[in-house]
C-alpha cells in the first residue's frame, strides 16, 4: 500500500496537544489523509503516551491500541496526542500535569474533560476528527462545552485494548468530530470485535446516518431538568427537543429514580478500579526514576507521591479505602447494587421509549479555576455518569448557546443501538440547519 505524508502544523494556542506529529504518514482507505488527534491515554506505537501524567513521562508504547491500528489501516494520519485530565480524572482538563487546555469558544473557560484536548482540537479546526475516551462523560462533556459532536459507544462495541485503564468496567473509546456524519464515519472504523479485549462484542457498525425519525418515542427524564441544572441550559435543550417533535418524534415524560445514587455509585466504582489500575506505576518500569537508596516500598511511596497529581492521589486513596476489608460491603458491593438499579431503570424505560433526551451537562463550560473544590466538580458529572453505569450508548450534539457558550443535547439509547442515537442527533443537526 502506498504511504503518503501530510504536513500537520496546527496553531495550537489552546494547549490542545501534548505531542504533535508534524509529518504523519498515512495509507489508503475510508479515512485516507484525514488527520486524527488521539487522546493521550490511548497507546500509540512509537509515540509518547503519558495520560497527561508526570509518572508516565517518557513512556513510549511498543504497540498500538486496537482502535489506533484500525484508524491507521483505514488511511488516517495520527496527528498527535491530546491533552486531558491526568488519567482521565476530571471534568475540565485542568488536572493535566502539562497545563490546562483552553476552550476555543472562550479562552477564559475550560473545554470540559477529560477529553478536553481532543474536543478543543476539533472545535478549533486543527483536526477533522479525534478519538476520545468516556468513563463518566469524558467525551460528551467536552463535546458539549466546545460545541462539537461526541459519541460514547455502547460498552463493548469498541475495543479497549491499548486504552490505559482508569475504570475498566465503565470506560470506552469513542469518536469526536464537528458533525454527526464524521462521528458516524469514524465509528464505522473503530467499532467491532477484538479478540484481545474479551469484553468486546462482535457488533460492527456499518451505518449511514438517516434523518427520518418519524414516530420515534423520546423519553424526557425529569431528573435531567431538575435540581442543579441551569434553567437557561434546560430551556435551550427543551427547545431542541421541541424541534425533534416538529420533525415527527413523540415525547414521553419519565423518571430515573436510581439517579439519586448514581453519582455516588459511580465515584466508588471508578476510584476502586483506578486504585488497582494505577498501582503498577511504581517507578520500576516507566516514568522518571526517583534517585533513591531507600528500600523498595519507601521508594514506591516517593515515586507515587511525586509522580501523581493531587486529584489522582485523592481518587487512589478513595478507591483503596472503598476496597479495604471491612468496607468492601459498605461501599464497593453497595455501589454494584446501585449500578444494577440504574441498569434496570434504563431497561424499564427503553421498553417504552426508543431514546432518552436531556442536557449533556447541567451548565455551560465553567471558567478556569472556577470549580476549585472537588465535590462541586464531581456534581457536574450527574447527567453523564448514569450512561456509563448502564453501559448504554449516548451522544452529545450542539443544540444552541447560553451566554455565547455551546450547550449539548444528550441522546441516550438502548445497548448496541448506537445507530439510533446517531440518527436522532443527525436528524436534529439537519433540522437545526439555518
Amino acid at each position, binding site marked *: 500500500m502506498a504511504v503518503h505524508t501530510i504536513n500537520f502544523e496546527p496553531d495550537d494556542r489552546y494547549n490542545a496537544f501534548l505531542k504533535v506529529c508534524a509529518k504523519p504518514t498515512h495509507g489508503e482507505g475510508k479515512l485516507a489523509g484525514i488527520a486524527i488527534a488521539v487522546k493521550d491515554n*490511548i*497507546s500509540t506505537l512509537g509515540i509518547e*503516551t503519558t*495520560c497527561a501524567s508526570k509518572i*508516565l513521562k517518557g*513512556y513510549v*508504547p*511498543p*504497540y498500538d*491500541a486496537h482502535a489506533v491500528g484500525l484508524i491507521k489501516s483505514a488511511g488516517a494520519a495520527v496527528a498527535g496526542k491530546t491533552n486531558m485530565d491526568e488519567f482521565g480524572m476530571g471534568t475540565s482538563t485542568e488536572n493535566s500535569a502539562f497545563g490546562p487546555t483552553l476552550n476555543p469558544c472562550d479562552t477564559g473557560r475550560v473545554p470540559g474533560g477529560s477529553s478536553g484536548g481532543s474536543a478543543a482540537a476539533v472545535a478549533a479546526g486543527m483536526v477533522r476528527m479525534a478519538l476520545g475516551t468516556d468513563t463518566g462523560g469524558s467525551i460528551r462533556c467536552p463535546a458539549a462545552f466546545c460545541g462539537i459532536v461526541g459519541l460514547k459507544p455502547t460498552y463493548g462495541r469498541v475495543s*479497549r*485494548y*491499548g*486504552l*490505559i*485503564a482508569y*475504570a*475498566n*468496567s465503565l470506560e470506552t473509546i469513542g469518536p469526536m468530530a464537528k458533525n454527526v456524519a464524521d462521528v458516524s464515519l469514524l465509528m464505522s472504523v473503530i467499532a467491532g470485535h477484538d*479478540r*484481545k*479485549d*474479551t*469484553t468486546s462484542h462482535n457488533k460492527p457498525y456499518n451505518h449511514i446516518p438517516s434523518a427520518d425519525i418519524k414516530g420515534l418515542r423520546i423519553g424526557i427524564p425529569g431528573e435531567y431538568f431538575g435540581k442543579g441544572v441551569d434553567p437557561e441550559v434546560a430551556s435551550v435543550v427543551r427547545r431542541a427537543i421541541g424541534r425533534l417533535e416538529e420533525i415527527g418524534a413523540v415525547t414521553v415524560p419519565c423518571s430515573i429514580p436510581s439517579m439519586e445514587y448514581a453519582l455516588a455509585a459511580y465515584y466508588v466504582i471508578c476510584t*476502586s*478500579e483506578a*486504585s*488497582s489500575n494505577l*498501582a*503498577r506505576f*511504581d517507578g*520500576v*518500569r*516507566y516514568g522518571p526514576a526517583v534517585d533513591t537508596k531507600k528500600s*523498595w*516500598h519507601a521508594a*514506591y511511596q516517593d515515586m507515587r507521591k511525586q509522580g501523581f497529581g493531587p486529584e489522582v492521589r485523592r481518587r487512589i486513596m478513595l478507591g*483503596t479505602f472503598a*476496597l*479495604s*476489608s471491612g468496607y*468492601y460491603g459498605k461501599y*464497593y458491593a453497595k455501589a454494584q447494587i446501585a449500578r444494577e438499579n440504574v441498569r434496570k431503570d434504563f431497561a424499564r424505560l427503553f421498553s417504552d421509549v426508543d431514546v432518552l433526551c436531556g442536557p449533556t451537562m447541567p451548565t455551560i463550560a465553567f471558567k478556569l479555576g472556577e470549580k476549585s473544590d472537588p465535590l462541586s466538580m464531581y456534581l457536574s458529572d450527574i447527567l453523564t455518569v448514569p450512561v456509563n453505569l448502564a453501559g448504554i450508548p449516548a451522544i452529545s450534539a450542539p443544540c444552541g448557546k447560553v451566554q455565547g457558550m455551546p450547550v449539548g443535547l444528550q441522546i441516550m439509547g438502548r445497548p448496541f443501538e448506537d445507530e439510533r442515537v446517531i440518527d436522532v442527533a443527525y436528524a436534529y443537526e439537519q433540522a437545526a440547519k439555518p
Partner: protein
Amino acid sequence: MIDADIVVGLEVHCQLDTKSKLFCGCSTDYRNDGPNTHVCPVCLGLPGTMPVLNKRAIEYAMRVAKALNCTIIPESEFSRKNYFYPDLDKAYQITQYDKPLAEGGYVEIEGDDGKERKIQLTRIHVEEDPGRLVHMGNAERGRYSLVDYNRSGIPLIEIVSEPEMRSPKEARKFLNKLRATLEYLGVFDSEKEGSIRVDANISLRGSARVEIKNITSYKGVEKALTFEVTRQKNLIRRGLTVDRETRHYLEARGITQSARSKEQENDYRYFPEPDLRPLRVQSWLKDIVLPELPDARRERFVQQYGCSLNHARTLTGELKVANFYEAVVAGSGNGLCTLAATWIADTLTGELNYRSMKIDGVDAEKFTGLLELLKSGTITDKSGVEVLRVMLDERLKGEINETPEAIVARLNLAKTSGDDAVLLGAINEVITENQKAVEDYRAGKNGALNFLVGQTMKKTRGRADPGELNRLMVAALKSTEQ
C-alpha cells in the same frame, strides 16, 4: 504430647504445563533462555493491555478438579489480588477469590497408621504466576535486585486442603500423591524447577496456627513441618505460647524463620477482574476425559502382574516409573512380572536415588536384558546389582553404553558352576586358610560353615550361587576330613 495432636493443612501451587501463558500467547518454555525473553506487553503488564484467558489452562485445571473428585462450579470468576511487589508488574495478581473453579474433593493417602485416608480439599482455583526477583551484590558492594518477567503469567492452580494431615510424613505423602495424579493427567511436570510451591499451615492442639510460606521442594515440606513441630513443642514445654504468625522456610538451613510483621498485614483488596467475563465451563465438562490414575493403575498392577501391594504402590507412585515397569514387562513377553517389580521398586529406585538420577536415564531394553540374565541363572543377584551399578554409572558419565552381557563378560561376573575350577580352587584355599573355622565346624558349630561360605563368596566376588556353594563346601569339608 502424642502426634495425633498435630494438624496440618497445605496450599499447593502447581504450574500447569501449558504451551502458552494464562493470559497471553507467550511461551512457557523459558527455563533455558535469558531473562525477559518470554514476555509481551500483556505479561509485562504494560498500560492498556488486557488479559485473554487461555482455555487450555482451564481445561487442565478442570482435569485436576475431576481427578480429585471436586465439584466444578459452572460459573466462576477471576478477581484481582492487589499488593505491591517489584516482581508483580501490574501490582495485582489475577486469581480466583470468592468464586473458585472447583470446591470439595479429596486426595487418598496411606495414613501413618497404615490405613487409607481421604484428605478433604477445600477448593481449587486458577491464577497467574508473578515474575521473579534475582538479588545481586552483597553488603559491601551495594545490593540491588533484577526482575525477570519470564515467569509472569505462567498458569498456576492452587489446591487448598482441609487441615486433616496428622504428621509431616502424611503431608509428604499427600504431596507425592498429588504430584503423581497431576503427572498422570499430563498437566504438570514436576521436574521443572520451581514448578511447585507450598504454603503449609500447622498447629498443635490448643495452640495458634502457624503458616510456613513458599516451600519449594517436596522434601522441604516434610522438613519444614518437622522443624516446626519440634520448635512448637519446645515452646509449649517451656510454658511459652506459640504465636499466630507467618514464617519462611530457609531451605539451605532447614529451619523456619518469622516473617517481618509488615508482610503479615497485607489487605489484598480483592474485587472482580473487570477485564474478564465470568468463567462459564458447563459446556466443557463433557470434554474432560481422565486417563488411568495412580490408584487404578496400582490395582491393575496387583491384578494383572501379580505385584505385591507395596511394590505396586511404589511402581505407580511416579508416572515414569510405572511406564518403565510396563515397558520392561512388555519387552520380556510378560515373563518377568514379579522379578521386574522387585528389581525396579526395590533395587533400581534405590540406586537411582543414590545417584540423584531420573528413571529416564535407564534403557528399558538393557534393563530387561539384565533381568533375563538373572532369570536364566547366568548371574547371581549380587552380580546383578553390580552390573546395574556399572550400567547406571556409565550412563551418568555418558561414556560407554555396554549391554549387560558385555559387562558380565568384561568383569567376569558369570555365575560359577559346580565343576568350575576357580570355585573349587577358592573353596580349597578357604579351607586351608581357615583351619580354626574348619575345626569349629567339625566340632559341630554350624555358624562356622556360614563363615567359610562367606569367605568363598568374597573370593569369587559373589559369582557363586549361594545354595550350590553351600553344598560344595559341605562336600569339600567332608572329603578333606581325616
